[in-house]
């Protein structure tokens, strides 16, 4: 940490409220690009075999998928500048096929890069302070955070300085570059959890103790995949000064005791499950007490330097309510629908948080064309201090928009097909790429999302149904987070055909829950129909203001099984 230039701090005229690389960061990323360029050259020359090269390319985010290579670009804690978004668009045009896919890990994936072009792509990313380091491999992955960080009304502290602090600690950490399995950390600093912290290897919730001091609830062992678990709290309050040392202790215990004999049992969630919370906590605390903490002593100066980058932008002093905004809502029903669904209250009077849905009706969840990326960059520049966020629900957020500007912003977005008013509604579906792209997938997931979206395309009906998260994965690895969807869909292979299991009751928030299986799988053509039946039951039985998830909790799974039975009687493959 001390290698950083302490004089390099947030500039008063900085275009955004995001971390800016200093000379140390730039040299670090540049050296990594040079190193990978050399590794690619040696691979093409035959000096490296594929077995030797694979872990190197994966550590740089490069996969080999069904139809082509895939490059996963890190978007640290989901924060992007407009300049970076423009560069992502340029890369899509120059080296890919004119689009990118925003993922449930707040990253971006290109589906068609060539190996020979990848060093140039990484160099283009490095020019705008981006990279693909540790977006794959058995290491600490991109640290994720609340997409409303710094602007939410329920926030105790912006989680991004902590996330950036951890990113620097974990980047090429020599002891944790070859862990038993991948390791994911998420940070939230608000009352409401929007970062799914209970479903990460480590979840951190920034909060205050009784003396008002900031610290962390440390949650360990959450995860999805083939064995989903809700994370468990190992420390209700960890003083900030102990953050790095304590995480170091957790990772050491995992590195020592995590199973390396079976990749399916290698995540820390399995260690927590098999060891038991009490004993594992004891192991962590023992390591923490015994370790030499000096190398991990909290560097307040560095933390404050980082925090300086995330200072609020120069907001204007405005009335809490914009007359222009309210007038536009009254005059334009489409804008009013957008405002009621995609606009969230901001902590600063007169401002708003805007969620830009990447889920047009019948579209591919998370995909954005290069033209759309440029419009998003323009929107951020004109209306939002040049800053954007990526949410784990695969949407884009503009975190600082004046209410006075909302109508003009909406018109700009609408012209680029980016104004679908469905944030948080039934067609705001999370979906992994599935068997349309992914080499691991056992079934397609995008066409299922498209069919459901088309089935519920009536936006008025969507609003009637209300908040509802559908999440779809194309295999047991659960990149589409199906376990934590109020309605989850898992695509599998059954007797040589794609088959889809449906789960109900998943919850990614602090009231975390893993969805329960509704029954045997159904064929692709029946998924939307089964969901329609589930919705009918919900609409019939719900109480005033009751969300789908709450109605399911009250009514129970058995009540909803009727939907599946009905489809089974019609001859579905169950």
């Amino acid at each position: 940490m001390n290698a950083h230039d302490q004089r390099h701090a947030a500039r008063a005229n900085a275009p955004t409220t995001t971390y800016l690389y200093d000379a140390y960061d730039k040299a670090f990323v540049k050296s990594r690009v040079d190193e990978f360029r050399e590794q690619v050259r040696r691979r093409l020359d035959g000096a490296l075999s594929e077995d030797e090269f694979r872990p190197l390319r994966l550590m740089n985010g490069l996969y080999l998928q069904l139809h082509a290579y895939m490059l996963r670009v890190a978007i640290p804690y989901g924060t992007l500048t407009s300049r970076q978004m423009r560069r992502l668009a340029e890369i899509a045009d120059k080296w890919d096929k004119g689009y990118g896919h925003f993922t449930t890990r707040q990253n971006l994936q290109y589906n068609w890069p060539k190996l020979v072009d990848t060093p140039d792509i990484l160099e283009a990313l490095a020019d705008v302070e981006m990279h693909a380091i540790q977006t794959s491999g058995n290491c600490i992955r991109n640290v994720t955070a609340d997409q409303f960080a710094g602007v939410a009304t329920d926030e105790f502290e912006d989680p991004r300085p902590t996330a950036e602090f951890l990113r620097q600690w974990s980047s090429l950490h020599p002891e944790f570059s070859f862990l038993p399995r991948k390791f994911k950390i998420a940070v939230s600093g608000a009352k409401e959890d929007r970062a799914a912290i209970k479903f990460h290897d480590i979840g951190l919730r920034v909060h205050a103790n009784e003396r008002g001091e900031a610290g962390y609830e440390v949650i360990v062992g959450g995860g999805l995949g083939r064995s989903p678990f809700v994370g468990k709290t190992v420390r209700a309050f960890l003083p900030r000064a102990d953050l790095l040392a304590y995480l170091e202790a957790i990772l050491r215990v995992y590195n020592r005791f995590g199973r390396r004999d079976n990749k399916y049992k290698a995540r820390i969630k399995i260690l927590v499950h098999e060891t038991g919370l009490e004993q594992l906590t004891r192991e962590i605390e023992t390591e923490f007490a015994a370790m030499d903490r000096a190398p991990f002593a909290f560097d307040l100066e560095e933390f404050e330097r980082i925090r300086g980058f995330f200072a609020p932008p120069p907001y204007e002093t405005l009335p809490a309510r914009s007359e222009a905004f309210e007038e536009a809502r009254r005059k334009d029903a489409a804008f009013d629908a957008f405002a009621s669904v995609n606009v969230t209250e901001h902590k600063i009077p007169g401002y708003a948080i805007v969620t830009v849905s990447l889920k047009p009706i019948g579209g591919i969840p998370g995909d954005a064309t290069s033209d759309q990326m440029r419009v998003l960059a323009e929107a951020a520049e004109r209306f939002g201090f040049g800053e954007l966020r990526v949410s784990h629900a695969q949407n884009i957020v503009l975190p600082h928009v004046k209410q006075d500007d909302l109508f003009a912003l909406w018109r700009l977005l609408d012209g680029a097909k980016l104004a679908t008013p469905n944030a948080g509604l039934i067609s705001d579906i999370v979906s992994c790429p599935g068997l349309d792209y992914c080499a691991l997938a056992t079934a397609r997931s995008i066409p299922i999302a498209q069919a459901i979206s088309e089935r519920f395309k009536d936006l008025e009906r969507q609003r009637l149904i209300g908040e509802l998260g559908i999440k779809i994965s194309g295999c047991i690895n659960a990149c589409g987070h199906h376990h934590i969807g109020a309605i989850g869909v898992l695509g599998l292979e059954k007797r040589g055909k794609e088959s889809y299991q449906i789960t109900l009751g998943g919850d990614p928030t602090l009231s975390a829950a893993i969805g329960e299986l509704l029954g045997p799988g159904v064929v692709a053509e029946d998924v939307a129909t089964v969901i329609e039946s589930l919705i009918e039951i919900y609409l019939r039985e719900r109480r005033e203001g009751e969300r789908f998830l709450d109605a399911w909790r009250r009514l129970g799974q058995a009540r909803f099984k009727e939907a599946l039975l009905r489809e089974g009687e019609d001859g579905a493959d169950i």
Partner: protein
Amino acid sequence: MTKATHPQILLASDLRDGEVLFLGAEGWVRDARAATVAQDAPAAAALEARGKADIAANKVVDVYLAEVELDPALGPRPLHYRERARLVGPSVRRDLGKQAQADKVGS
């Protein structure tokens, strides 16, 4: 690997650009219609041997056999939907992948 009961073709990915390739009579081809079809185990083993040689020569990666049925119009058609997808491209973007090329391949 279970014993093959159908003819087989050899698939791979191009090392340099990642595109799906099929082993043909004269070398790797990008259209499955030009793939060499192994009708029996010795012929399949011969395909695999050529594939392994090209892995060693750093031309291709991820080489494996896939069972096919022969369609007179479309050529070899993999039995499994995963490999059928690899012959054409993403089902949700018909403008991309092999299916987008002028002389479209069948699925």
